């Protein structure tokens, strides 16, 4: 119990600090790297919550592929620095107050339901393993899975079309 708690508090602090650093750092490249750190700590939390498959997917897809895409676009456009000034005066304090209010309400709503009050049962290694997830994914959720593949194809074509059309108009 105590070791788990120490692990969780450490990971939670790292992920919260990485998220704050991502928001406040002026250079977008640093923001990407802090977000990668946040994703890696959350992946470790997934491991602690018996979700091994999701943890690996998180690392390969999120921290790997998606964040490399972000870094690539930032470096392609060369817009890592944000211009200073011209901001609405009450924007930052108002955003922080609204965000904290949202955090409080979220915590209240999430903690009030029955599931949050429950205790954890001991699990076998099978839970959350790729084999067990795959069995559910390819039987009960086969149609959504196929729809997702079409969605990814559409997104790929869409990305190509959006960037290409603009180039033709420029010439």
């Amino acid at each position, binding site marked *: *119990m105590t070791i788990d708690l120490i692990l969780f508090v450490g990971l*939670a602090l790292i992920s919260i600090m990485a*998220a704050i650093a991502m928001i406040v750092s002026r250079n977008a490249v640093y923001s990407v790297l802090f977000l990668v750190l946040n994703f890696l700590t959350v992946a470790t939390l997934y491991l602690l919550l*018996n979700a091994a498959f*999701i943890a690996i997917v998180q690392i390969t897809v999120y921290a790997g592929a998606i964040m490399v895409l972000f870094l690539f676009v930032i470096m392609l456009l060369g*817009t890592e620095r*944000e211009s200073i000034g011209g901001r609405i005066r009450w924007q930052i304090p108002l*955003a922080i107050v609204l965000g904290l209010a949202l955090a409080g309400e979220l915590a209240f709503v999430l903690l009030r339901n029955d*599931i949050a009050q429950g205790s954890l049962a001991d699990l076998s290694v099978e839970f959350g393993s790729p084999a067990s997830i795959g069995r559910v994914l390819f039987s009960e959720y086969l149609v959504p899975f196929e729809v997702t593949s079409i969605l990814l194809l559409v997104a790929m074509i869409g990305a190509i079309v959006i960037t290409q059309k603009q180039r033709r108009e420029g010439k």
Partner: protein
Amino acid sequence: MNIPPAYVLTLSGILFALGVIGVLIRRNAIVIFMSIELMLNSANLALISFARTLAPAQEAFRGHVFVFFVIAVAAAEVAVGLALIVAIFRSKESIDVDEVSSLRG
């Protein structure tokens, strides 16, 4: 892990609120986009936590499957969103969201 699900849900709520704050205070479109990814991620954390709490039941796997779909949709969303940002940069020479105001009357 044997920590109360309430702690993980609290962390998820805090991360979500930080994502909202990021969207509200930043003007770089890419950083706003990254804050949205942070929010998706915190929602995933809540789903995994619920799945772990419901655990030995067969329904608990649905949390994991749902997170899998959220990650796949996020990948598609990032591809299209970044293509849009590149297109906006080509016409405006900037990705500051305050500059993109052509539709304002």
